Every structure is written in C-alpha cells, then in structure tokens.
C-alpha cells in the first residue's frame, strides 16, 4: 500500500499537495478500509464461528437464527450492543473507563498494518515488522490495566493485575521464539521473511530444524496466553473473577474488548503463518503467469486458510481444556517456556553453522516426524469419529 502511494506521488497524481498530507489521508482511508472491510467482519464471523464450533463440540446447536446458519449473528449482536445504554458506574474513573476499550482495540488493530495478506497486499512493509507487532500488542496490556483500575471494582482490579503479569511474562517466550525466524531469515520485515521461505512445506521455516519446530509451539502457546485464551484466560476467568476486567463494562465498550479478542485470534494465526508456514507463497503454476489478479487471490486465500486454521485450533483448545491457576501460569512461563525458548534459539543458531548436507538431512527428518505426528493424529480422529454414537446423543428419548 505504501509503495502504491509512493508510486502515485512519483507519477504526480497529487501535484501541489504536500507529501505528508497525502500520507495522512491515505493512512486514514486505509485504516477505514481495513477496519470495515476486513477486520470487523472477520472478528464478527469468528465470534459466530467460535460459538457454532464450540456448540457442536458440546452437542448443542449454537446460534442459527440470524441469516443462513446464523452467520449474521454478529451483526445482530453488534446492533443490539450499540443500542444499549452507555453505562459508566458512578464510582468509576469516567475518563479512563471510557478510554480503555479503545486502547485495547488500538493495540490489536495496529498489528494489521504489517500483516501481509499477499505479495502486494500489505499496508506498510515495515523493515521492523515483527518488532512492531510485539510492540503494539503490548498496548493491549495498558488498556486492560486501565480497564481494571478505572472500573473501581475489586474483580476488575484482580483481573487487570493478572492480565498485566500474564501478558508481560508471556511476551518473553513469544519474542524469543520469533527471534529464531529472524535469525534464519536475516530480516524483520514480514514480506522479507515470507520471501525467504518457499511454497512447499519443506521450504517453510517450521521444518527447518527441530528447534524451530519446537519454537513454533512455544510461540503458539505464548500467543494464546497473550490473547487471554483458554487455558490461559485467567484475567477474565468467569468462574473465579465474575468477568475479570470487563465486569463493569456493558454495551459497545464491552463489545470492543471481545472484538479485539476474536480479531486477535486471527492475528496470532497470521503471524504464525508468516513466520513459520510460508505465508502467502503459492506454487508457481503456469496459470498465474499472465494473471496477476488470480495470483493475488490465490495468495490471499492461501494465507487466509493457513492463518484461520490456527484460529480453529484455538477454538478447539478452548472447548477442551480447563483453566490453569495463576501461579501455575507463571511457573509454566518462567520455569519452562523461557528456558526452552532460549534453548531453541541456541539450537537454531547452531544449525545455521551446520554443513549444508547434514542440515538438509535433519530438515527432512523434522518434516518426516511432523508428517508422522499428523498421520497418528488423523488416525486417532477417524477412530474417535467411528466410535462416536450420534444416535445415542441426539435421540431425545431413548
């Protein structure tokens, strides 16, 4: 997008207008387009999909009334929440209380600047891409802490404190895991990292060496914790803290927090896809040769599917696992994940100095291992599906 604007300026499309003004207008327009065309429907549909997927896992039906299969449920919910009274508790710090949801939302929305949806579909290919993502997602913790403090509610305060401790701690293993990729790619730019990989799984960084394979799962776990997802949803643990830092919120402000949470799921998937799974890389088929539009669509779809797969995994984890306790959460981070991510980092550095042939063999072995795990997993899934007895679950009257 930035390159596109630069090109337009070069061609003299905005003659007589200062460059800064053009950039400012372009920024606002881009933000509007990204927000209204992509982020809002994405977070909304994710909320609907999560409820549906979750419901099926729990032998329920889930929302299916608004639109086909209930796919417009998020619109109905959004309108309902917009029409609700904008309630600020009398004892709350009104300014901070109203500001907090937007800070959280900002922290999540800013990450979309550097997410590469396709080879040319990126708002700005910053040369510090990953660092930027780590930096702006830290804004979320400020917002949550603000919400927790400004609500003047003890549950909110506990939730806010828990969240601050959790997000700050888990940024370390997440950052260290991402550093593996930075070392391998030699760049922090998101497009640069994708270009350093190939379309085929054996060209992905995920299977580059066993250490980076482990680092991927460390990143995913840490990202779940940063996104307040089960099993790390202790800041809003509803059975302990009523609703945690959102206890006093209602209406649209309440929705903004969850908007950010569901949208953030996609960001987690997108970052994982960019860094480990080859991003938007598609096989160089002859059909793409003279058809840049088709290529763009193929790249977008590839990226979206890869990223959304991890959203689904996160939903699945949420439906399966209980919640850890706050001290166990901290122990997991500092006693296991931080040392492990350091080991991964050292291992990856070691592999960078390894002879080419040996490295290839180990990469192939890693890929083989991953494929074997997938096969075992699929066999297990098929076994479970075969042994399920739907007629017993679904008959209302046996």
């Amino acid at each position, binding site marked *: 997008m930035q390159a596109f604007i630069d090109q337009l300026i070069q061609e003299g499309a905005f003659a007589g207008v200062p460059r800064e003004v053009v950039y400012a207008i372009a920024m606002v327009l881009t933000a509007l387009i990204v927000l209204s065309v992509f982020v809002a429907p994405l977070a909304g549909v994710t909320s609907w999909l999560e409820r549906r997927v*979750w419901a099926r*896992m*729990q*032998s*329920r039906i889930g929302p299916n009334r608004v639109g086909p299969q209930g796919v417009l449920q998020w619109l109905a919910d959004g309108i309902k929440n917009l029409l609700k009274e904008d309630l600020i508790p009398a004892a709350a710090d009104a300014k901070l209380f109203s500001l907090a949801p937007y800070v959280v939302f900002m922290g999540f929305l800013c990450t979309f600047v550097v997410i590469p949806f396709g080879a040319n579909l990126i708002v700005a290919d910053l040369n510090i891409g990953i660092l930027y993502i780590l930096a702006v997602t830290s804004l979320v913790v400020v917002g949550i802490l603000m919400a927790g403090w400004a609500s003047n509610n*003890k*549950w909110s305060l*506990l939730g806010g*404190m*828990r969240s601050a401790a959790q997000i700050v701690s888990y940024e370390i293993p997440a950052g260290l895991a991402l550093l593996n990729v930075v070392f391998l790619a030699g760049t922090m730019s998101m497009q640069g990292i994708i270009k350093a990989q190939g379309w085929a799984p054996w060209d992905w960084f995920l299977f580059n060496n066993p250490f980076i394979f482990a680092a991927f799962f460390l990143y995913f776990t840490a990202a779940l914790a940063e996104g307040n997802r*089960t*099993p790390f*949803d*202790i800041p809003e*643990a*509803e*059975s*302990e*803290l*009523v609703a945690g830092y959102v206890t006093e919120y209602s209406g649209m402000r309440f929705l903004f927090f969850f908007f950010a949470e569901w949208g953030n799921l996609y960001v987690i998937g997108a970052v994982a896809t960019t860094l480990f799974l080859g991003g938007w890389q598609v096989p160089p088929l002859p059909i793409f040769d003279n058809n840049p539009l088709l290529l763009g669509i193929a790249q977008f779809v590839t990226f979206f599917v890869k990223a959304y797969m991890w959203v689904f995994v996160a939903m699945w984890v*949420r*439906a*399966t*696992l*209980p*919640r*850890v*306790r*706050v*001290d*166990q959460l901290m122990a997991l981070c500092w006693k296991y994940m931080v040392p492990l991510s350091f080991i991964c980092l050292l291992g990856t550095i070691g592999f960078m100095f390894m002879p080419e042939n040996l490295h290839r063999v180990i990469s192939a072995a890693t890929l083989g291992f991953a494929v074997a795990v997938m096969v075992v997993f699929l066999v297990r899934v098929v076994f479970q599906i075969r042994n399920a*007895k739907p007629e*017993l*679950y679904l008959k*209302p*009257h*046996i």
Partner: protein
Amino acid sequence: MNDTAPASTGFYTEDMTISVGPQHPSTHGVLRFVVKTDGEVISEAIPDVGYLHRSIEKIGEKVTYHGYVPYTDRADYLAAMFANQAFCLAAERLAGIEVTRRGEFCRVIACELNRIASHLISVGTFGQDIGAMTPFVHALRERETINNLMEEICGARLTYNYIRIGGVGYDILPETCTRIEAFLHHFEPIVDEFNRLLSGNKIFIERLAGVAVVSKEDAFSYNLVGPNLRGSGVKWDIRRDIPYSIYPELEFEVPIGTAHVGVLGDSFDRYWVRIREMQESCKIVRQCLSMMPKGPAIAKVPRKFRPPAGECYARVEAPRGDMGFYVVSDGSEYPYRVRIRTGSYTAMSIIDKLSKGIMVADLIALIGSLDVDAPEIDR
C-alpha cells in the same frame, strides 16, 4: 500481612475484602463468602448462609403428613427423591407402616437415578468452575435423559413428589424399565468418555491434586458426610452401615478416596468418589431392574394419617451425604416438629478452615469439590 508500614515511605498494604456472592457464577446458587485476600492469596473466607431460606421446617408443622411430601422436594431440588424418602421413612416408622416390596424397588431405582443426575450436575459444574466448559454441557445432556426418564416414572422432572408414605405414587411400567436399561447401557461408556475428557486432563489434575486437603480427623470433627467424608478415606455410607429399604440385598461398593493423584482427602479425591458413585448407582439400578417383584407399589395408608405420639429420626444416604428427617408427632394430623439435617450445611463450616492460605481460584475449586448446594444449606 503487615499493615504497618515503615514510617519513612508512608506506603502501607492492607487486606482486600471481597464479597464472593450471593450473585457469583460459581457459588452454585445464592451462597456468599466474605473473603479477605492479600492479592490472590486468601487469608480468610467466612461463609454467610441464609439467602435461600424458605422455612421448610416450619411449614412442616402447618401441613399434614401427606401434604408435606411435596415441600420436602424443595429441601434439595437437585436430589428431591432423597428428601421424599427420608421424610416418608420417618413417617412410616412413626406409624409402623410396612412399605410394599415393589414400592421399595421403585424407590431405590428412582433414588439411584436421581443420585446419578445430582452427581452429574456436581461434576459438571465442578469442571466449569475449573474452566472446562464442554464437560458441563455433556453432563447436562446425560442428565436431561434422566429427567425424561423421571418424567415417565412420576410426571415431574425436578421436584418429583414420587415417594409417598407407604410406597411410591406410581408404579414403574415395564416400558420404562426397558428405557432405563437402555440408558444405563448408554451411560456407562459415557462416564469413561467423561474421564478421558476431564478427569484425566493434566491441567485438571494439577488444579485439584493436593488442594484443600481434608484429613480424616478434620472430616470427623467438622461432621462431613457423604462423598466429602468418603473422599477423606472413611468408608461410611448409610446405605451400608445403617441399612434401610432393600439396600442390604443389593451388592455395591462404597468408593472411598485413595489419593488417586495427590494427597488423601484432596479436592480430586472428593470429585473421583462422585464419579465412581455414579458407576455404582448404575450397578444398583441394574440389580433392582432384574430383581423387581410384582405387586402393589403402595401400601394402604389412611388418608387422614395420624401416627401415634412419638418421635423418629430417619436417615438416608443422599448425594450430598447423610440426610436426616427428625419428625415429632403429637398424635394429630400435623407433625409437631420437623427438623432436617443436611450434608451441605456442615460442609460449609469447613470452608473457613480450609480456605486459609489458598488462592482465589482454589476457593472456587474447594466449594465445587464439597458440592455444597444452596437450597440444602438453608432449607
């Protein structure tokens, strides 16, 4: 907690007092705890009871014996059958009425199905307290089938009013027996599935093993009953030790805590006892279905029921432990006094002791593992 600060800074810390409940997602009804915490660590949790008091005992003095049975349903609406049975046992013993044999079998079948339903709620909500949402819905799904069966047996899904003085209100039909059999056939594998999903989960075990340990001595001195007592390794079950109804003829195990994953008497042991009790209940129902004799389901009991003056205390093993009805008769149509003894009320008292030094999340686990039930606490 150090309330006095070094004079130089002027800063000091103090305990935070939080009111957990009466409206709180995991207090299972209207319970309230006044919790003093230092951050996440609880220094004191004082239970506050009485939010669901409905004067069920006093009502007992104002209605006839027959008329009181529906009120006993409400004493513990998750396990209404047991309160029915305990009151009817007391009334029958006062008047010297013999329950018909088929009536006894119907009672046991209904009670054990009710025990499964009640334990399903208990373990399901317990999973939810720990943060696992799916097992709760799965447990409710199974309970729904039991509710359907109960509806077939007695026409009600929650407050049954099924057990009457002298027997049961309605006979269990042969078709219903087949459906109960089918349910048991379906349910036993479901318990295993539930264990794979929840009980064997590493996070779940970590959250519960060694948390809120009740020693045998504590369990005795705080008068814990039922699964809470058995979780501490005490083999005490009214069905086995003070037999009533046809339980002496039936074969069943009394599961006790075995320090399965942690320390004897921890939260997991209490949970695990409930899971295994559901399996035992399935066995009991199966035996009853195969042994069921023919005959009337209820004995001839006069409509104007006037037991001779006297007093009686009848106990049954309810899902939340020893439930007792103490009934005093003065020879009139109305009981002179009814007193109900329930397991949850005494279980509440130990929370104060166990909560010192545990975390807020552990308090929720503790309340869930004791399976305290608001209507039963307050009556």
